[in-house]
């Protein structure tokens, strides 16, 4: 039985994975001069959450946001435009990989400082609640953000104000190169958050459909209970904290551990599942070719697009009527 949802989820994950593979391929050319914090391995979480939020949902991300940006916007042209620093990018190259933003498509902003965009989601949720528009604002962050004061401030404020906000902790177990054990003085984040006036969900599957189901539950609960949800999703970062290399056995990242995760790789897993849904190799290869072609065209266009003119420097420091 062919299922459009399963294919949609796969298509998005495939697009993100291939987009980052293209970054890996072209980064050494030194044309994309922006610090890349790669999402590879974490695609399923981003795709599941964005899909559950729907097109009207608003995501506030952070510096590792390639996956969420692409899941929310499906716009590789703007994405590569920005990475190449060209006028086709989201901010004409002024923002780069760490500050991607497309508010009109619901990817509101990304901060390069851990946890700093979380309270924005709470304020946006307040506005949505006032406007009674049914939109869910989502604070999207890594496990390192749990150690920042502003995460707890924001969670507390959202709970006491009963705001329609979804807190998503994308837990890859690492903050730069530091493991959880040296960073967190609590055993289990969901046990702690459970004591707040919100709902708590967790999942450590790499199956994007399972993650999607959990995210939907969390969002339904926000709507039915009128209070925030916190969802904790485990994942694995395939590459280094920054850059395109995959470092192993330098103290924090063992090859064996990686292989264990890679055996459950979410993109491969979803592809396999599609076969049992009735998709054939040929049909999938056809879908993939279309995505590949679009991505390659995006990279080509970005590489050829002009750099911003000098006067662009001063553009947008303040709001510009248009």
């Amino acid at each position: 039985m062919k299922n459009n949802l399963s294919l949609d989820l796969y298509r998005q994950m495939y697009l993100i994975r291939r987009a980052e593979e293209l970054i890996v391929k072209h980064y050494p050319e030194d044309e994309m001069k922006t610090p890349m914090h790669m999402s590879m391995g974490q695609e399923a979480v981003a795709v599941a959450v964005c899909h559950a939020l729907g097109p009207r949902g608003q995501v506030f991300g952070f510096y590792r946001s390639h996956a969420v940006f692409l899941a929310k916007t499906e716009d590789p042209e703007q994405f590569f435009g920005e990475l190449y620093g060209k006028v086709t990018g989201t901010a004409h190259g002024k923002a780069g990989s760490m500050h991607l933003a497309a508010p009109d498509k619901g990817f509101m902003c990304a901060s390069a400082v851990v946890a700093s965009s979380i309270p924005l989601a709470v304020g946006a949720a307040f506005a949505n609640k006032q406007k009674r528009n049914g939109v869910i604002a989502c604070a999207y962050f890594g496990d390192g953000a749990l150690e920042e004061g502003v995460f707890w401030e924001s969670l507390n404020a959202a709970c006491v104000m009963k705001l329609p906000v979804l807190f998503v902790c994308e837990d890859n177990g690492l903050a730069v190169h530091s493991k959880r054990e040296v960073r967190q003085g609590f055993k289990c984040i969901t046990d702690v958050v459970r004591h707040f006036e919100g709902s708590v969900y967790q999942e450590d599957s790499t199956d994007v459909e399972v993650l999607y189901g959990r995210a939907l539950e969390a969002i339904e609960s926000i709507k039915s209970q009128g209070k925030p949800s916190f969802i904790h999703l485990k994942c694995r970062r395939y590459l280094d904290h920054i850059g395109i290399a995959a470092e192993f056995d330098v103290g924090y990242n063992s090859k064996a551990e990686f292989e264990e995760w890679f055996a459950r790789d979410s993109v491969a897993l979803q592809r396999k599942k599609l076969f049992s849904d009735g998709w054939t190799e040929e049909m999938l290869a056809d879908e993939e070719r279309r995505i590949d072609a679009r991505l390659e065209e995006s990279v080509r266009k970005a590489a050829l697009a002009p750099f911003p003119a000098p006067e662009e420097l001063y553009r947008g420091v303040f709001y510009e009527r248009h």
Partner: protein
Amino acid sequence: MRGIDFCEAIREAMWQEMERDPTIFVYGIGVPTHAKIFGSVKGLSERFGLDRCFDTPISEEAMTGFGLGAAINGLRPIHIHIRVDFLLLAINQLVNMVSTFSYSTRGQVKVPLVIRVVVGRGWGQGYQHSKSLHSYFAHIPGLKVVLPTTPRDAKGLLISAIRDDNPVIFIEHRWLYWAVEDVPEEPFTIPIGEGRILRPGKDMTIVATSWMNIEALLAAKILSRTGVEVEIVDPRTIAPFDDTLAVESVRKTGHCIVADNDWVDCGFSAEAAARISEKCFGQLKSPVTRIGFAQTPCPTVRCLENEFYPNAAAIVRAVESKLGLKPMDLSKEDFCSHERRFKGPF
């Protein structure tokens, strides 16, 4: 016209704007509680409800990011802090998020966020309840910084700040709350970025900020008895800082003192002095003089506080020295009427 005080001018500005625009809301620690931010939010929660005038957790950083999130999502927040010192907990939000949001979207998203902060002084406020910090904020591209001196300016500038589509830090000196002036009852705006001649004169230009305008006015009154007429320029907005009025004034007088309600080192007085020196180099008859706080934390005990804050006497002496006049007898002058008036605790 009718005389109202600075505090009432601020309250009236918010009230009238909230009547006009339902997207405006006021929030902050203790805002709707009985003290009503020194009375400046009196009646707002009763009139507009707790959805538009509300208390918050003691979480300055998150509640600043909250304001940004609400502002980019169609509302117009006014965030209030009873001391500017508390805003330091939110510097990350202000400098990393609020000031850059517009830039990240090439100016396509409105960020209509007003942050009202009160500067404390006297009766033992000490070093964590007395800072002004306006040059901290003015240093950052993407933030506007307004510090009115008079009730009329407070009302007109606050309405402009609320209607501005960019983040504005609105700095209120606690002692200015007593100032009374004729203020139009109808809503009106004073453009952000425009200065004002607070007192005309021909012999000396004093560029003063916030409370230092009050000291400068007293100094001017004393000096006029000897025939010296000082011109006082209140920039009112230091980011953006339009130096036109100050430059024109100095071209006329040939002398300039910058009296800033802040520390001198690397402060607004340095910015103003540099601009004057650059633009009036040939016309200056003496180097620009700067007056500000002693370069120490603000002490609590009154006798040391008197040493810490510059007053009208310091301005009189600076003027005399620049003009080569004999020091006048100031022993009969009262320089501490406000110090005696403010009984605290806040």
